[in-house]
């Protein structure tokens, strides 16, 4: 059986930062990533990041992935990377079950784990929502920006959060027409600077609108949209048909933490964090000792915060194993201050309300 000190599950922004932070403290780390390359969602994020310098603000996501990978190389004697490897189970005896290239099963026994498993896209229920041409917005972004595949010619974007707005902009950069962006909420959910970028391209953003149904024989041909009232009920008589061959569903993400639930972590459904998330302490350790969490798996937020959470979780996991650097307190406070700054505005209010519900002050593992 393979052994390691720290196992990081997920090679996205949170996982890579956790691995780097733990290695910086002196721990040996194994990063397991199910895709064939590291970077998680960063590898399709051609836009510049928000935040401040510490979180690579103004740098494009695709380049942040390269920066983090270059940092990994600096620690190549301590950090081992296993791509094409999916973790399938975490067990009571501390053994982790993994699958390489969908063929070879193997076991890993780590001393500690950081689960940075990310999130998955939510869907939307309406008649014919399974017609070809209806995608998750994240899937379309992957098709375009990772594989260079144009998803279609005429898009209806459903959801005006940051992902919906950013993917719409990137579709237009790829030469695809965006017919409209709609959102059931009465206000645009994403950053208004992103919305303004779309608006000045002449694309209408329609709040208080939803999809009533999709129409098409073999694939999407038309979308019927309508207005909704303040209780999100369709208003009869407001239906409109749009001729589109692609519909992108961008109605939010949900934390991907089945592995944590399976291992028996205490979970809590927290709407502000967009789903079921593990209860944890301030050091990102779940109710299962030596099992840490970071990034979207602990609540949906921007990638900037995910990276800082990763740094924190990696620092704390290494310390728990005996790799407590002399400047631990300083580093801990520095990362905590970055998170506080990212969450101190109106955008962070609901995140903070969510985190209050999952961070237990009592220390069960001391």
């Amino acid at each position, binding site marked *: 059986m393979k052994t390691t000190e720290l196992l990081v599950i997920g090679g996205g922004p949170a996982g890579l930062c956790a691995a780097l932070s733990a290695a910086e403290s002196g721990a040996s780390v194994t990063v397991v990533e199910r895709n064939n390359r590291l970077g998680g969602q960063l590898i399709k994020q051609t836009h510049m990041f928000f935040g*401040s310098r510490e979180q690579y*603000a*103004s740098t494009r996501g695709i380049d942040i992935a390269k920066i983090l990978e270059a940092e990994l190389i600096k620690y190549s004697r301590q950090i081992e990377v296993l791509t094409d490897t999916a973790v399938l189970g975490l067990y009571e005896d501390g053994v982790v079950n993994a699958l390489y290239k969908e063929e070879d099963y193997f076991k890993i026994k780590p001393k500690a784990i950081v689960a940075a498993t990310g999130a998955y896209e939510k869907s939307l229920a309406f008649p014919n929502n399974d017609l070809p041409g209806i995608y998750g917005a994240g899937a379309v972004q992957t098709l375009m920006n990772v594989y260079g595949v144009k998803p279609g010619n005429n898009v209806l974007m459903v959801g005006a959060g940051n992902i919906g707005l950013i993917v719409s902009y990137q579709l237009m950069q790829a030469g695809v027409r965006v017919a409209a962006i709609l959102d059931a909420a009465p*206000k*645009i959910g994403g*950053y208004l600077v992103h919305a303004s970028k779309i608006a*000045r*391209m002449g694309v209408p953003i329609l709040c208080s609108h939803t999809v009533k149904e999709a129409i098409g024989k073999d694939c999407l041909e038309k979308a019927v949209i309508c207005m909704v009232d303040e209780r999100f009920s369709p208003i009869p008589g407001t239906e409109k048909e749009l001729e589109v061959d692609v519909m992108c569903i961008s109605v939010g993400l949900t934390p991907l933490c089945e592995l944590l639930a399976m291992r028996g972590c205490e979970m809590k459904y927290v709407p502000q964090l967009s789903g079921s998330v593990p209860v944890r302490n301030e050091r990102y350790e779940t109710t299962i000792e030596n099992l840490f969490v970071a990034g979207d798996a602990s609540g949906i937020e921007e990638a900037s915060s995910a990276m800082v959470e990763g740094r924190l979780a990696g620092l704390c996991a290494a310390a728990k194993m005996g790799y407590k650097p002399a400047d631990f307190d300083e580093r801990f406070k520095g990362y905590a201050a970055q998170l506080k700054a990212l969450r*101190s*505005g109106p955008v962070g209010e609901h995140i903070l309300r969510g985190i209050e519900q999952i961070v237990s002050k009592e220390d069960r593992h001391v």
Partner: protein
Amino acid sequence: MFEQTGIPERDMIIEKFPPVERIDRGPVAIVECYKRIPCNPCETACRFNAIRVGEDINNIPVTDHEACTGCKVCISKCPGLAIMAVDGSKSKETVEISLPYEFLPLPQKGDQVSALDRAGNFVARVRVVSVLNPKSFDRTPVITIEADRKHMYDIRNIRTEEH
């Protein structure tokens, strides 16, 4: 309406502009950031301390139009593409407007392009006077067009023939 459409109202726009007297002295940045979000690269990018966000990175940037030299570096660094620049020093009839533009094909100096407003509506045909696209701008080119002064508060985008 701004929070429903992403299109700022005219008074919001004018509030971000410096006085015409400043515009007539040379290029100056206009930071159209209207809502608190955690972001401060504009402050980091400015060598002249002309854009201040402050300790809380959620603050709305404040521009010191006197300290601004109109160098346009911030235009390429804003992740929200919220910064533009205007220069009224070249002529009494026209104004030069610099905009971030991340689409291909890039226009060339001397090209005629369509100027659009903040809702994407056509405003006028205008001439491209410069295209800045150095490596340091990291794939956010800055296009400068020459427009009639009466459109100074309207123009915020361009469309090339091909696009």
